[in-house]
């Protein structure tokens, strides 16, 4: 049974074919480490993806897997989950796949609260098609398709997800295996749609895109993790925290104990405003970039509601009798 599974059980026989050094390897590893812990039998996992480097993911997982078409994975996954709510359905997508061509399916899956886990590998570039700007690329970025710099202001992926009322929203980093696993496990255990942005280095077309935040020596000062129930504290010395000055977040420095004014993080507030504020925290100069769990709110899932209607109909009207249905309404005999 599930409890005896190990990460090896989730490695398929296909050779992993990303560029050496690609951040996708680390994420694959983390996922393969988290899946065996979930107490779900292997055959119940389905990994659905779109098109892109990230989207080759299912081939490397020894689960059921479906490499679909560009941008449509959330829609396909919605069908999978509605058809069989027993399955644990995961979507792996790139920033182009999820936010560019697939933006609409993503936000609709979120608003419906379909119980699928969307992992968006954000490398802020189109990898598979060799280096064009993505909707996550910075304004002014020079790429093959934007030789004088991108003129498109990018999305804030977490803001999009929160705007669509995603009930679970989180962010982590490819190379922060420990943090990533905690986030993935929380997503897996959450009942409802989950959106997880994972910073992922594309060492070929957008190398070091996240180093300014994620490099070991700056990480503690430039990022802060939102951990449910914990005060929002950061800094190498863990001596700074985020407080709220009514309308504005502020950084408070302290010695010793964490002062009370430092926010104790609660991602389960129904109102998404504070999560939304956190998604924009790093727009402010000198504020850290938050990772961790931005939102986690319980609500019945879409497929639950759909199947409850079926059960209600069956308990009220009995299980459907096809012959009766065909012959319903006004009939006559010849």
């Amino acid at each position, binding site marked *: 049974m599930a409890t005896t599974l190990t990460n090896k059980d989730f490695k*398929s026989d*296909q050779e992993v074919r990303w560029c050496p050094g690609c951040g996708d390897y680390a994420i694959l590893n983390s996922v393969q480490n988290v899946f065996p812990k979930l107490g779900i*039998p*292997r*055959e*119940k*996992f*389905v990994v*659905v993806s779109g*098109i892109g480097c990230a989207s080759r993911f*299912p*081939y490397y*997982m*020894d*689960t*059921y*897997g*479906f*490499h*679909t*078409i560009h941008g*449509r994975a959330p*829609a*396909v*996954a*919605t*069908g*999978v*989950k*509605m*058809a*069989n709510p027993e*399955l644990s359905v995961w979507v792996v997508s790139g920033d182009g796949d999820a936010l560019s061509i697939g933006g*609409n*399916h993503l936000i*609709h899956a979120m608003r419906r609260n379909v119980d699928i886990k969307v992992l968006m590998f954000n490398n802020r570039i189109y990898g598979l098609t060799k280096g064009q700007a993505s909707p996550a690329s910075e304004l002014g970025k020079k790429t093959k398709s934007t030789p004088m710099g991108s003129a498109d202001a990018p999305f804030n992926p977490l803001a999009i997800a929160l705007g669509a009322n995603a009930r679970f929203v989180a962010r982590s980093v490819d190379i922060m295996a420990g943090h990533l696993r905690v986030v993935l496990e929380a997503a897996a255990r959450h009942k409802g749609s989950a959106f997880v942005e994972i910073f992922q280095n594309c060492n070929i077309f957008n190398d070091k895109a996240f180093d300014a935040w994620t490099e070991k020596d700056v990480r503690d000062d430039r990022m802060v993790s939102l951990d449910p129930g914990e005060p929002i504290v950061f800094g190498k010395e863990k001596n700074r925290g985020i407080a709220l000055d009514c309308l504005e977040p502020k950084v408070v420095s302290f010695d010793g104990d964490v002062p009370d004014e430092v926010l104790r993080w609660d991602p389960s507030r129904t109102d998404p405003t504070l999560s939304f504020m956190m998604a924009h925290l790093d727009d402010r100069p000198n504020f850290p970039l938050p990772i961790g769990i931005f939102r986690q709110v319980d609500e019945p899932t879409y497929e639950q509601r*759909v*199947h409850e*209607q*079926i059960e*209600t*109909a*069956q308990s*009220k*009207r*009995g*299980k*459907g009798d*096809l*012959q009766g*249905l*065909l*012959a*319903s*309404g*006004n*009939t*006559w*005999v*010849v």
Partner: protein
Amino acid sequence: MGTADSGTMKDPSTKTELPSVVIRLAGDSGDGMQLTGTQFTTSTALSGHDLATLPDFPAEIRAPAGTMNGVSGYQIQFAGTDVHTPGDSPDVLVAMNPAALRANVGDLVRNALVLVNVDSFKPKDLAKAGYENNPLEDGSLSGYRVIEVELTRLTRQAVDDLGLDTRSADRCKNFFALGMMFWLFERPMEPTEKWLREKFANRELILEANLRALKAGWAYCEATEVFAERYVVPRAAAEPGTYRNISGNTATALGLLAAAERSDLQLFYGSYPITPASDVLHEVAKYKEFGAVSFQAEDEISAVAAAIGASYAGSLGTTCTSGPGMALKAEAMGLATMVELPLVVCNIQRGGPSTGLPTKTEQADLLQSLFGRPSETPTPVVAAATPSDCFAMAYEAARIAVRSMTPVIFLSDGYLANGAEPWRIPNVEDLPDIPVPQPNPENFLPYLREPETLARPWARPGTPGMEHRVGGLEKEDGTGNVSYTAENHERMVHLRAEKIQKIADYIPEQSVDGPDSGELLVVGWGSTYGAITGAVEHARREGLSVSHAHIRYLNPFPKNLGDVLSSYRKVLIPEMNLGQLALLLRGMYGIETESFTKVQGKPFTEAEVFTKIREMAS
């Protein structure tokens, strides 16, 4: 009412026998003509007549009341047996206002019966309809038998003591008119009474008003000499069985549901509303006690993608749309071809291109069905011939999809979708078997094929030990692994084509109505069935030798189709497009064809096809 033009005023007790009658009910969108038509249809069906109907909605949302754009019509033809179309020209017109008269009078047979609501022929009503003079007075209707009835006043009178406001009272006048039609053709009123009681169970006042109007209409005919005679249409014996009246869209929904039941699969229906396909969604959404899952997606791409996901998970994935939506599904259908999963895509065709004529009918998506996807993406195509045939062909689409693990296109059109006809209800157990390709646990490979059909096995997520990956990249035969080799690609392209061709092994051969060789074969597909059948029968009555082959399986074609086609000196192909089937048959069988086209957003009449047949056969 073939003999209508011989009719003269007679004693009211006189009954005239007619072989068939065509009635058109016309009024403002708000006048409830669709409802009146449906009630007349039900009652007629219950009388055991064969029939065909044609609703004709205005294209506008709600045009201003009383204008030509706001006219809504409903036509029914009924006869003792073998009605093929709703009829070319009405024998009876009910016109609730001047616009309804003006829009329809040109279509009538000579000496047709025209019932008008004189209360709505005030100068401002006439002006709205664009009449300069009152047609009831200027002699322009002299070729018809006009019956003027004060429908509004009489209806108000009938409901007088109920204390309704005028607007609500006036809303009942269609039932007054219906009562008159029931009297005229001796239809039973009970089905309508029953329907009213159900519909207005919680609104007693409205119920009572409508019942009174209905009965008052009947009584008015009984009491006065408004009509000179009553009409009787004798019934011939139809095939024994239990019948109901059914529209194409309802039949489509039931066909899919039946296929799910018989294959023991859960029906998954993903769809995005679009005229004239939305009613299939509305219908399926009702089948919850059958476990059918209906999903209103954010767009057509999501609808088909979710259906593919559902099929992947083990459901019977289906989707339904029309023109613009069909275009959007092409990419995902290619995925279904590559991953070889069952999928039924219903296309209820409408007038195009682009948004086109959304409420009108057309059958111009045939070549798109065959070729409208990038690369070599062979896709089976079936088409229904009549409203009730939608049941059979939607079922066939699903049977093929499951048996051969492939997307299948089912074609209907606006005319079939909204039209209705009596349907002999089949026995569920008599429906064809739908074998589901099962994986072999001893020797499972995702692309290991059944030799007969070349179908791959359907291993559903949740099955231990069969974990595997599928996707849109070219697959290695057998393992299903990604493969970029030249040889494998060529093999797979041919295999996919062959798999579709092999469907011809288990679908029926092409049947022909009429002599199996000779001078002239009329070949049709889809909703031209009724008009062609009627025209061919007519031609035979005139002594012409004509056969009719109606193609319901359009890809692959039945195996014998080439032989059938080459057995006649001439082949006539009437189509509601610019000659799509004709091009295809020429390309595939190298035969000469005569293409006969009509692209007007409305079906062929029997007369049009007959005239063409006569021209070619002589």
